[in-house]
Each structure stands twice: as structure tokens, then as C-alpha cells.
């Protein structure tokens, strides 16, 4: 009894948080799910019923396999458990099949694979120092970080309502970051290589990994003032990193290389035929651009050259320049790497091609790690997270899920803002009046878009207005956060020695 007592006692708050959120995820099982549910069911069917040579050619369903091979193998592994739940879901011809057992299996598979995310969060908590912490548990940075990550609103609604597998993928990313903090670079590199072959969207942050590993791992020593000691370059390390990446890619793409299917695989992975913006505009630079374009066209100032000057490429020049600057003066170790990674993710979100609004999670989750460190980072994090999470609202448009998304959003936002404010109460306030006003404006915006507008006459003529307003309003916030982060990275005084983590 005593042992049970210790196990469930106040000492194990992390398990309580993890179990609590897992139970909440179980309660979300009967909620609305999007077409992504059918996408994954289809992939279960494809990988289970067809030979490998057919995986990237199968097109019975419109939701063709467009993730890298490791994810296909993952679905293959899942399908062997799926057959005990409902054999029918593994039939490729059963389009839109969603029996109760299928739903149960799919939902449980997401909840179960989140275990990796929980482990990654646990590792990340070890990497932040708690010097500032008070004695109170709820004011410790580790506690706040655990809540911010485990109970992240974006992950909950995208993974457990909308339906996706971002949990364990983000877990891989956070784990590789944690390994870098723990100076286990090879493991971190391996984890990231594996991650890339699960979901290629993580290519957005690959430059950060590449430059950091090159700078801090291949060059084994620094000069006393922190800059590069050119003669400390270690070829052995470079080769071993290259070997890791090569081996992982070989395992992943090897079978398809042997079948001469690489071009087909790549055409599935990178479909450039799609437009600059998705059906719903992700709140990035292009949203602001398109909005401006539309406004100009309505006014009548639409010059042909303006709208045709859409530069049709991915992560921009500014992004690349930023990296070069950062890493030429990279003395700040893993923390600098983290900031670079976030900047990569955010810049790619801002300027990327056919960006989904869900991609904001790529920046939000690593940013949580920084937010419990410095007040400046906390402020940027809160603006980014609040607007990023709000921009996910249009994903859940059903009436039954409306209270859930509002309640969870309020829960996360109120907790994150209040706990970080309490953590940094001895420093200057986190928000200035402009930022406070902007964040508070989200409330009336939501009321207007979901409660007022649908009952007005404009709803029939211009049904896209709520989406437009949400996208543009959030784009302003996200752009502002991106800009502030960029400025803080560029103007941050370099730290002499890396802090003891």
C-alpha cells in the first residue's frame, strides 16, 4: 500500500499529467474526424493488401500514399493489429469505411503511438534548468513545460479530433533535440534522419540540423572567444554522420530504388501541381499577399504585374541568409540550434509552398522549450501559440465540437499565459498594450465568425469571409512573432560558454 502510495503520490506529477491527457484523448474518440481518417484507413489497406511494388502506384482512392516509405511501413505494422479489430477496413475497395471498430482502432493507434511523444517530453524536461524555480510544484519550469507540451491544444485537436499522427512524429523531433542538449549528437542525427523518412515536411528544419551538426559537432573545438577553430575539423565525425544519413535513406528508399520507382515516389511526395495556397489559407505571408491582392482587385487597382509577380518558390532567400549569419557566429550551442530550428520552421511556414495551417505546430512545439527559459522567448511563444492555435479553429467546423475547441483553447491559453507570467513575474511584463489588445481581439473575432456572421445575410453571398478574416488576423500575429524572433536572434548578445544544461 505504501509503495502504491508513493507511486501515486505527489512525487509523480508527470505520470499524472500524462495519464490525465491520455484519458482526455480517450474521451475524444467519438468526435468528428476529417477525411484524414479515410486517408489513413486507405493506407492501412494499401500496405496490408498490396505488394510493395504497388504501394506508390495504387490510386483506387483519391488519397494516394504521399508520405515517405517509413510511414508506409508504420501503416503496414499497424495493419497487422488492425486485422483483429475489423478485417474489412483493410480492403482497398472499401472506400470511406468507418465501422465503430475501425474508429476505435484508429483512434487508439494515435493515442498509443503518443507514448513516444510522452517519452520525448520527459527527456526534454531533463534538459531545462530549474534554477529559477520556486518550491511550489506548479511554478517549476519543468512542470509548466510538461503541461505546455503534453496538453498542447494544437496537437490535441489535430491528432485526436481531426485525425493525424503528429504526436509520435513530434516526439521524434523533440527527442532528437533533447539528444543534442544531452550532447548525444549521433543519436540526435539518427533520430532526425528517421523522422525525415516518416514525414518529409521536416525537410523545412533540415538546414538547422545540417548547419548545427557541421558547426558544433564536426568542428570539435572553439577558440577562446567562441569562434570556429578551423583546424579542429574532424573528418571521422563528418563521415559517421554521412554514414548514418546514408544508411537510413538506404533502408527507406532502397527497395524502391531496386524497383526503379524513385521518380514515382518523389512525384507523390512533392506534388508541385497544387497551388500556392491551400483550400483554407494558412495564416502566412501568402495569406496577407492574397488578401491584399483581393482588396486591390475589389478597389480596382489590380495591376496585372502585381498578381503575376508571385514568386513561386519555397523557403525564401531571407531564410537562407538568416542561417548563414547565425551559424557563422554560433557560440550558443544547443540553445542556438533550437532557435535556428524554430526560425527555419517559422520561415518555411511564412513563405512555403502549399503550406497547411497544421504546419504551425512544427514551430510551436520546439518553441515551448525556449519559452520557460527567458521572458522574451515566453512573450514570443505566447503570441505565436495563441494565434497559431486560433488559426486551427476552421479545421473543426461542426457544431458538436464547438464547445470542445473553445473550452480547450481557453484552458490552454489561460494556463500558458498565466503560468508563464507567474514564472517571469520578477521581470518586465510579457506583453505591451498593443500585443494585449491584439490577443484580446481574438475573442470578438471568434464571436463574430461563428456566432454572428452565420445569421447575417452576407453568409450566402460571401461565405468565405470568416475564413478570410481568421487567416488574415492570425497571419498578422504570426508574422509579428516571426519578426520579433528574428530580431531577438540577431541582436542577442552571444553567450561566452554554453550554459550547463
Amino acid at each position: 500500500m505504501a509503495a502504491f502510495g508513493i507511486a501515486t503520490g505527489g512525487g509523480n506529477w508527470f505520470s499524472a499529467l500524462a495519464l490525465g491527457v491520455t484519458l482526455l484523448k480517450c474521451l475524444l474518440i467519438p468526435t468528428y474526424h476529417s477525411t484524414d481518417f479515410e486517408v489513413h484507413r486507405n493506407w492501412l489497406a494499401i500496405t496490408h493488401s498490396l505488394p510493395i511494388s504497388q504501394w506508390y502506384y495504387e490510386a483506387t482512392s483519391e488519397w494516394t500514399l504521399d508520405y515517405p516509405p517509413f510511414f508506409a511501413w508504420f501503416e503496414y505494422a499497424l495493419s497487422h493489429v488492425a486485422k483483429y479489430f475489423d478485417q474489412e477496413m483493410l480492403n482497398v475497395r472499401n472506400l470511406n469505411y468507418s465501422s465503430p471498430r475501425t474508429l476505435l482502432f484508429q483512434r487508439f493507434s494515435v493515442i498509443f503511438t503518443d507514448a513516444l511523444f510522452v517519452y520525448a517530453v520527459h527527456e526534454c524536461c531533463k534538459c531545462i534548468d530549474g534554477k529559477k524555480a520556486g518550491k511550489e510544484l506548479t511554478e517549476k519550469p519543468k512542470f509548466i513545460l510538461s503541461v505546455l507540451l503534453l496538453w498542447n491544444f494544437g496537437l490535441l485537436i489535430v491528432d485526436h479530433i481531426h485525425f493525424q499522427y503528429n504526436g509520435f512524429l513530434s516526439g521524434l523531433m523533440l527527442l532528437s533535440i533533447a539528444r543534442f542538449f544531452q550532447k548525444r549528437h549521433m543519436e540526435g542525427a539518427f533520430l532526425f534522419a528517421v523522422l525525415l523518412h516518416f514525414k518529409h515536411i521536416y525537410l523545412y528544419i533540415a538546414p538547422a540540423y545540417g548547419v548545427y551538426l557541421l558547426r558544433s559537432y564536426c568542428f570539435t573545438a572553439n577558440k577562446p572567444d567562441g569562434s570556429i577553430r578551423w583546424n579542429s575539423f574532424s573528418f571521422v565525425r563528418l563521415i559517421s554522420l554521412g554514414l548514418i544519413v546514408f544508411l537510413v535513406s538506404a533502408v527507406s528508399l532502397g527497395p524502391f530504388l531496386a524497383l526503379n520507382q524513385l521518380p514515382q515516389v518523389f512525384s507523390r511526395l512533392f506534388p508541385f501541381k497544387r497551388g500556392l495556397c491551400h483550400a483554407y489559407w494558412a495564416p502566412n505571408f501568402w495569406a496577407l499577399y492574397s488578401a491584399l491582392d483581393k482588396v486591390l482587385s475589389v478597389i480596382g487597382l489590380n495591376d496585372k504585374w502585381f498578381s503575376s509577380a508571385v514568386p513561386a518558390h519555397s523557403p525564401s532567400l531571407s531564410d537562407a541568409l538568416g542561417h548563414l549569419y547565425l551559424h557563422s557566429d554560433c557560440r550558443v550551442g544547443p540553445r542556438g540550434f533550437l532557435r535556428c530550428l524554430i526560425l527555419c520552421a517559422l520561415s518555411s511556414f511564412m513563405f512555403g509552398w502549399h503550406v497547411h495551417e497544421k504546419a504551425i505546430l512544427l514551430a510551436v512545439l520546439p518553441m515551448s522549450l525556449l519559452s520557460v527559459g527567458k521572458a522574451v522567448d515566453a512573450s514570443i511563444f505566447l503570441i505565436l501559440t495563441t494565434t497559431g492555435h486560433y488559426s486551427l479553429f476552421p479545421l473543426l467546423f461542426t457544431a458538436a465540437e464547438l464547445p470542445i475547441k473553445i473550452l480547450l483553447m481557453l484552458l490552454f491559453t489561460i494556463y500558458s499565459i498565466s503560468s508563464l507570467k507567474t514564472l517571469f513575474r520578477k521581470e518586465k511584463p510579457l506583453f505591451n498594450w498593443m500585443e494585449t489588445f491584439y490577443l484580446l481581439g481574438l475573442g470578438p473575432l471568434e464571436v463574430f465568425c461563428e456566432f454572428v456572421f452565420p445569421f447575417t445575410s452576407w453568409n450566402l453571398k460571401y461565405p468565405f469571409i470568416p475564413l478570410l478574416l481568421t487567416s488574415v488576423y492570425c497571419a498578422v500575429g504570426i508574422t509579428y512573432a516571426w519578426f520579433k524572433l528574428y530580431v531577438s536572434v540577431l541582436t542577442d548578445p552571444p553567450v561566452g560558454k554554453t550554459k550547463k544544461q
Partner: protein
Amino acid sequence: MEKWYLMTAAVLLGLTVRWTVSLNSYSGAGKPPMFGDYEAQRHWQEITFNLPIKQWYFNSSDNNLQYWGLDYPPLTAYHSFLCAYVAKFINPDWIALHTSRGYESQAHKLFMRATVLIADLLIYIPAVVLYCCCLKEVSTKKKIASALCILLYPGLILIDYGHFQYNSVSLGFALWGVLGVSYDWDLLGSLAFCLAINYKQMELYHSLPFFCFLLGKCFKKGLKGKGLVLLIKLTCTVVASFVLCWLPFFTEREQTLQVLRRLFPVDRGLFEDKVANIWCSFSVFLKIRDILPHHIQIMISFCFTFLSLLPACIKLTLHPSPKGFRFTLVSCALSFFLFSFQVHEKSILLVSLPVCLVLSEIPFMSTWFLLVSTFSMLPLLLKDELLMPSVVTVMAFFIACATSFSIFEKTSEEELQLKCFSTSVRKYFTCFTFLPKIIQHLFLMSVIAMILLTMMTVTLDPPQKLPDLFSVLVCFVSCLHFLFFLVYFNIIIMWDSKNGRSQKKIN
């Protein structure tokens, strides 16, 4: 209060859990011709909106009392009327007379669930938050933990948001009553409690402790002076509130009598269906329902009920204190549940509410009781296809209580409030030192039994000759638990001396 944001987080979490549970099925979903409690509530909206007040409780061609006739006091009827008024704006088909019978749709379900949430938000949840904020000698962290655990209590969530009822309204009013009376706002407290009784007549289970506590207060103030004034004021408040609620039904004697007949169906037997009280469990061995005549049954139940609650009530009248009041609420309600007639399994919620209130004082036993109370409703929950939300909410509640209160470390005699009792017993039996250990082992056995029974009920089919085997087993086991708790709570009340009150709580 400091850390208000954590309290807000607890409330938001409670609301989220409530709404996610409400996405599941409700009682009688898709089961014509009678459906279930959900249809009953919809039907009451139909009746109260379309018919004049005089016909609400009477049998007529428009109002067939056999099909979910109104059997709650007038406040429920007024509440249904209010909901019907809103329903008319959204979709009049939902409450059209006769034609809306058995109406089921996703939109209607959302509307009905929303009415429960709004009622909860307006009445019950503020009462819980206020109660926890006003707890004395308790740290802020424990206040927030209490609020979280009370809001996560599975029984109320599953019945209100799963099965479909409005218990949070009557329990909320009762809680406001407890708050008022405990902090010397006696008139407002008794007004709130009268509203509770006029919403659901089962709240009469709580009426004796209220009566005894207020009477005790009057005695303490002296019946010659302030006490008498207080007594008169209270009487006037109670009478006025009843008159206000029943006004339309006081116009004719027949109206009042008919409502009373609907509220207290003495024609029905000692118990209906399977319920975890003494009579149902006893009938496993001896079918008293069939043997004894009707009026004898009522007499026996009356006697047992009052004999079991008399000691606690007398003590409360002689030594009124908020702590005694809370514990007497528990023991009285439990006595009524175990020995009264026509008890439904959902009435255990009337016992659970007071137990929630003492959660911060005896966390271990309270958590145990609240788990058993949810388990006792298992057959009902399974019938409504609420297995998954039940299991999840019970686990969530258990984890919340276990981590917030470290319940397994708090099983010493002092923490179980059994110190005075044990000391007295040790005067006769010096070796009586193993009480905490016994209780810990009992808890373990109890949890194992509950889990086993749940698994058996879900996975196995009962034998042909005994189709109700598992329901009866669940009721029987729960009844044994409740008897044990009745004894335990009465011990605490009777052995609670002035020494107990001076002990400082270290949290």
C-alpha cells in the same frame, strides 16, 4: 484568490469532460416505444409548452400520464417550459404536441445537451467553486484540488450528460443551501434548499439535517430571544418559497393533491428494478415485496430509516456545527437511500454530493465511497452504452484524487477521523491497533471485486436461469459497501468530540 488561473483551468477541464461525455449515447436512444429519460424530458417540454398549467399533472387525451407523466415538483415543470420556449425558436417540430413523440436528431441532441450544460454552469459549478474557495484551514493548492475532484466526480457527469437528467440543478441548489447555512446566511440558505426540494422531491433526503441544524442554531441563540426570531423568519421563508413555487397549483385542492400523488407514488412497491439498497438485497434471500402487505412494507421502511438516522440528527440539534452538518447530511441521505421505499439507483447522487463536500477532510474514504457509488450504477450505465466514458471518467477521477490528496499515505487513524473511536475501543480491547491496516486491505479487496464484476458483466453472458445475475451481484456488493460506510460515518459523527475540532489540519 492567488492561483485563480489554476481554478479556472480546473473548471474548464470539468466542462470539457462534461461535454465530451455528452457526445455519447443517452438513455433510450433509438428504442421505441418508450425510449428513456431523454424522451421524458423532451416530452415534458412538449406538455408544459402546449398545455395550460392546470392540465400538466392530470391525465387527459392530450396528456397521457402513462407515457412519461410529470412526476417532479413544479420547478422542473417551469424549467421544461423555459427550455421549450427556446426550442420553439430553433425548431418547433421538437415540441409539437403529439407529433414530436420519439423525436430524435443530432441537432435536437445538441440542444438538449446544451440545456444541461447551461443549467450546470449557472447553478452547480459556481456553487462548487465557491464552496472550495471558502474551505477553512486548507491551502490554496488543496482548494483547487478539491474543486477539480468534485467537478470530475464521474457519477454526476455520467447521469446528467450521459443518461440525461438535470440533477445538477437540484444538487446545485442544495449546495447553495449548504453554503448559506454553513456561513450563517440562514435565510438565503433555506431559500436555496427549498428551491432544491421544489425541483426534485428526492432532496427531502437532505431535509432532516437542514431542519436539525437550523433548529439547533435557534436553540443555541436561546428560544426566548434571537432564537425565536430566527425560527419565525426561517418558517416564513420556507412557507413563502413553497407558496411561490406552488402558486398555480394551490388554486384548487384537487390540483395540489394530484401533484402530491404524482410526486409520491405510494401505490408502487418497496423498490423497483435493481437498486443497491437493503430491501432489494434482502429480497435475494426473502421476497418481502410479495410476502408482506403494502402498508406493513411502508411502516417497516419508515421505522428503519428513522431509527438509523435519529442518533446523528439528535446530536446535530444539540451541537450544531458546520462539520457535523456535513457529516449528518451524508449519513441521513445514506440512511434514506438504504432503507426508504421506491429508491432509484440514481438517488445515490444525493449521498455523493455531501461526500464530495467532505473530500478534503477524509480524502481516502470519500474517494472510496465515490468510486463505489459510480460502480453501483453500472447496470444502468451499461444499458445506455456508456462503458467507455464510465471507465475513463472513473480512472480520471481516481488519478485526480490520488495525486491531489496523496490518499494512500493518509490512512492513519487520525486521518480517518477514527482516533476518538479507536481510543474508546482500546479501553476494552487493548489490542485494537490494526484498524488502518484492515481498512487498507478492505479497500484493495473492494477495488478488485469492483473491477472483476465490471469485467464479468461486460464480457460474460449471464446463465439462462438467472438473467439478472450480474445486476443483482453489483447491487448486493454495493449495498454491503454502503452499510459499511453508514456505520463509518455514524461513528465519526457520534465520536466527534471537541478534541477533534481543535486539531490543526496540516496540508
